[in-house]
């Protein structure tokens, strides 16, 4: 599976707030790398950076550079962002939706319940970490 993890998943996986499913998902993706592809846009990396001291962010980069592919934001076509804005998302959230579609991801994993969860016409699934773990288990 090709997955996009939202910034909240990274923070929860690293221990900010108690979120066992996010931790379990990250552990699994880390130990099963090669089976799944993880990508993230520069914007999400920036959000992680903003919310950690430099000393921690440095360790995060060391960890993810081996198994997460980082894309530059400018790769995503403007028109695709507009499509998600028309769905009622704020521009920045619309960008994340557009990015997820642009890279052809199977799912966007997020704990943000406001994020497109009521849409059934998307080219990707919006899953919580818990739901994603169930999907991965079913595919085994």
């Amino acid at each position, binding site marked *: 599976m090709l997955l996009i993890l939202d*910034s*909240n998943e990274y*923070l*929860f996986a*690293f*221990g*900010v*707030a*108690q*979120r066992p499913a996010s931790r379990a998902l*990250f*552990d699994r993706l*880390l*130990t099963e*790398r*090669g089976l799944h592809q993880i990508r993230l846009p520069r*914007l999400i990396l*920036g*959000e992680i950076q*903003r*919310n*950690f*001291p430099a*000393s*921690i962010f440095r*360790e*995060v980069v*060391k*960890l993810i550079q*081996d*198994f997460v592919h980082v894309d530059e*934001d400018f790769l995503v076509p403007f028109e695709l962002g507009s499509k998600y804005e028309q769905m009622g998302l*704020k*521009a*920045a*959230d619309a*960008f994340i939706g557009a990015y997820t579609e642009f890279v052809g991801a199977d799912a966007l994993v997020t*704990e*943000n319940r406001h994020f497109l969860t009521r849409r059934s016409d998307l080219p990707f699934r919006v899953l919580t970490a818990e739901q994603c773990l169930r999907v991965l288990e079913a595919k085994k």
Partner: protein
Amino acid sequence: MTRRRNEKAMEKLAKIRRLVREGPSSLRNRSEEEVIRRLRETRQKLWEAKLASHSR
């Protein structure tokens, strides 16, 4: 080879979790909802900064 690589990665992850647990963080001890709200604010600020830099 894969096992060793996984062990190394899990060690790095454990180090990050220890640093987050012990280090200074404005997000520590916040609820899940507060963390999500904070991240949404961060996203908005970064996006506005990006737009401002592109419109110069």
